[in-house]
């Protein structure tokens, strides 16, 4: 049976201490519900929302992956025939077009994620260390650095897509007209270059979050540590290597995982940058599944791919948590 917190110090909310004469009927009612049901009542709205929007759709999605759910069954999806593991087999048949495209998209997403998370972390940690000491204009600079995080994704990415336009964009103007680095104006939003365009936008958008988190983390390092190190003759780089970076480890553990999950699942950036059809070189997995579902209206197939994606993310997260926990235990 659920219990009210008694052992957690001073968590009492009134029953024991309520004045004797005060509205006995109401108190009895409160006792009856308050003791057991109150926390559940408080959780109920959150629980209902989570059930309707997250959990039921997820279970439904897993069920759908085992159905032959094509456009003919959209109106009444439960009448779609079961298809066993067919959808998964098609998705994992890497010699056939569907599976081959999925595998390609998976590799592109892996490359993209590793580069984007790595660069975002690197820039975030550099900027947070460089803004650790107070200087004139630091507050303004920090606010400027956080702008990409504050701007709505669609507004920011549409601006980037303007900058990447072949004939009217800023990027080609600088690279070709001003710096003469390229023989001809390259395309950035179609073809192989689109990967680098996407990566640039993604890093621009993600690093401020790393900066924000790491700046918060740096504030927990006592200044005495640096002073002691400086007395012992440690230079700036040694202070960073021996004090700053090790102290940031707990923040890094969470930060890298969160950045990984966000980047791997990113849909908004490629969707706004390229429109509904992402080029091959920048075909991220979310947009790939979206396209193969809504263009062919084969929701069963799309669900199977989503389930595979979920399994992969679960596996990576589990391994990551396991590995980092073990390293922490060994360190202690």
């Amino acid at each position, binding site marked *: 049976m659920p219990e009210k917190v008694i052992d957690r110090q001073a968590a009492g909310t009134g029953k024991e201490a309520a004045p004797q004469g005060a509205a006995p009927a109401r108190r009895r009612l409160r006792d009856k519900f308050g003791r057991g049901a109150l926390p559940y009542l408080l959780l109920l*709205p959150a629980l209902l*929302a989570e059930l309707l929007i997250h959990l039921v759709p997820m279970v439904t999605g897993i069920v759908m992956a085992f159905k032959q759910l094509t456009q003919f069954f959209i109106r009444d999806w439960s009448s779609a025939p079961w298809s066993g593991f067919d959808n998964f087999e098609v998705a994992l048949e890497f010699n056939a077009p569907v599976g081959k495209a999925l595998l390609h998209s998976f590799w592109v997403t892996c490359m993209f994620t590793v580069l984007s998370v790595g660069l975002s972390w690197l820039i975030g940690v550099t900027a947070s260390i460089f803004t650790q000491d107070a200087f004139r204009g630091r507050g303004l600079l920090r606010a400027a650095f956080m*702008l990409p995080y504050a701007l709505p994704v669609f507004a920011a990415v549409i*601006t980037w897509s303007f900058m990447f336009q072949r004939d*009217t964009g800023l990027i080609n103007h600088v690279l070709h007209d001003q710096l003469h680095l390229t023989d001809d104006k390259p395309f950035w939003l179609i073809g192989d270059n689109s990967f680098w365009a996407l990566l640039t936008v993604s890093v621009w958008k993600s690093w401020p979050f790393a900066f924000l988190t790491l700046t918060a983390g740096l504030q927990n390092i006592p200044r005495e540590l640096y002073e002691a190190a400086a007395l012992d003759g440690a230079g700036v780089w040694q202070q960073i290597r021996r004090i700053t970076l090790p102290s940031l480890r707990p923040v890094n553990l969470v930060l890298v995982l969160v950045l990984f999950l966000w980047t791997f699942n990113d849909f908004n950036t490629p969707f706004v940058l390229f429109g509904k059809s992402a080029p091959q070189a920048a075909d991220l997995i979310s947009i790939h599944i979206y396209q193969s579902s809504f263009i062919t209206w084969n929701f069963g197939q799309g669900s199977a791919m989503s*389930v595979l994606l979920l399994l992969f993310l679960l596996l990576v997260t589990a391994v990551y948590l396991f590995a980092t926990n073990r390293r922490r235990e060994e360190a202690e």
Partner: protein
Amino acid sequence: MINPPASFRWLRRVVLLVLAVFTLTPVAVMLSSSLKPLQDVQGPWRWMPSHLTLRPYVDIWKTVPLAKYFTNSLIVAGSATGLSVLIALLAGYAVSRYRFRGKKVFTITVLSTQMFPGILFLLPLFLIFVNIGNSTGIALYGSRGGLILTYLTFSLPFSIWMLAGYLDSIPRDLDEAAAVDGCGPIRTLVQIIVPAALPGIIAVAVYAFMTAWGEVLFASVMTNDQTRTLAVGLQGYATQTDVYWNQVMAASLVVSLPVVAGFLLLQRYLVAGLTAGAVK
């Protein structure tokens, strides 16, 4: 750092300058292009307008029904934020102040939903909304209500986590004092906890509003002409045969203003809330 040498200070200056340029270039592009006449954005890129014009800021409201999208976004993001904060506050209060069976399962389940790809929910949710509409007549698909419900749930997990962390940092002596005065749990929450937790509540509200304002994937599938939000509507300038880039930039700036202003005003609450949640 203690006693940084001159080389370090120079490196610091250069790196911060490069980063500032990288960060602010798109903002400069937005601002400059939004003040350009149309021919300026149809030719090669130029940094400054050939002559300053405010025409784009007038035209954006006519080229696409931007006012309607704006209203829709305000209604959807505003309602989702209000509801999400309320629901997260109740849940966070329960998690922070009560011990009950299933607490751990609840927090882990709710947090782990953060990890799941949006695309996995999108297809089933689309079908569930369509089917609810067909069988009960409650139109969730294509309606603002459906979108509000979806967005409030998106920000819930993180909001609950952040608020529970924040409430943990509020001394329980306050609850106790309220109890001595004869306050029940709900009155304690409203009269004692809410004022004390206001910074945390503001942080959660900023986060929830930004989440709802910027979401693209569900907005593009779950809305129709009448309920379209800015996230989808802004692409209206770009899908026509002529792209009015000056108007796109003006519109981007206009739709960014509410969130950026709110964020810059309230960012210290967000940072404080993030830290409180993360410390836990």
